[in-house]
């Protein structure tokens, strides 16, 4: 291990820190969830109204998004790894310490959900 190795390690960690600062999780009690399919916005759901949204892409890819009071979860998904369902409830509180912050991502189906929180007026 040499000094320049520490420079390499420091560079990687600095990059991580910069990204963390750029993509800070939102704080606030109210807001909405934006559902994206691939790269396009599919729906925008207010967090104060409980709802379920079924996204059927027609090729066997089905995701069910559930809005509950104050948060969002992936209720079910047709994907093989179920990582999106295992992510559980995402709320403005959970976003502060979750690995994926304010996002739920179903990579195999190309579905992502962003929790956008706003400060209560």
């Amino acid at each position: 291990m040499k000094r320049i190795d520490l420079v390499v390690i420091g560079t990687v960690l600095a990059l991580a820190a910069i990204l963390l600062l750029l993509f800070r999780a939102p704080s606030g009690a109210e807001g909405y969830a934006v559902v994206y399919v691939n790269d396009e916005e599919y729906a925008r759901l207010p967090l104060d109204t409980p709802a379920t949204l079924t996204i059927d892409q027609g090729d066997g890819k089905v995701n069910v998004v559930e809005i509950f009071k104050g948060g969002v979860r992936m209720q079910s998904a047709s994907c093989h790894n179920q990582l999106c369902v295992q992510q559980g409830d995402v709320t403005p509180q959970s976003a502060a310490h979750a690995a994926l912050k304010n996002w739920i991502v179903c990579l195999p189906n190309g579905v992502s959900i962003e929790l956008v929180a706003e400060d209560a007026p």
Partner: protein
Amino acid sequence: MNAGKIARYGLLTGVMLVLGYVESLLPVVGIPGIKLGLSNTVLLYALCLMGAKSAVLLAVLKVLLSGFLFGSPATMLYSAAGAALSLGVMMLLERVPNVSIIGVSVAGAAFHNIGQCVVAALFVQARAVLAYLPILLVSAVVTGFVTGVAAKYLLRYIKKK
């Protein structure tokens, strides 16, 4: 390519596939996309003792074979992008004087994750991927360090023989 070389490449490819497979059996701690990357020790070995061309050949074999054996076209795309970026950066850093194998390994691990994130960004919102990248980078420093130390002692042992 003579028989000795062919045998050596076959052996190294086999070691990489087994290491990759064993790793896939280990439980991952709740965070997808994080793994030790032990098969990178073989690439580090090849890069240091056999040259860049050999390392590229081994990486291509690993991506193709593990894709056909354990993966799908999608997972092959992820590992190809990860391997290409990772090996490219490792080849560059290996030429920089004073960078030890540990530094090469850490950079390789980080760029493996960056390559996979680039592919992921093709399928979902890029901002979701960028939000996840910091955690992957921090884990890459840890896993890259561990594999780098393993490769360092491996090389020391092999050179003695």
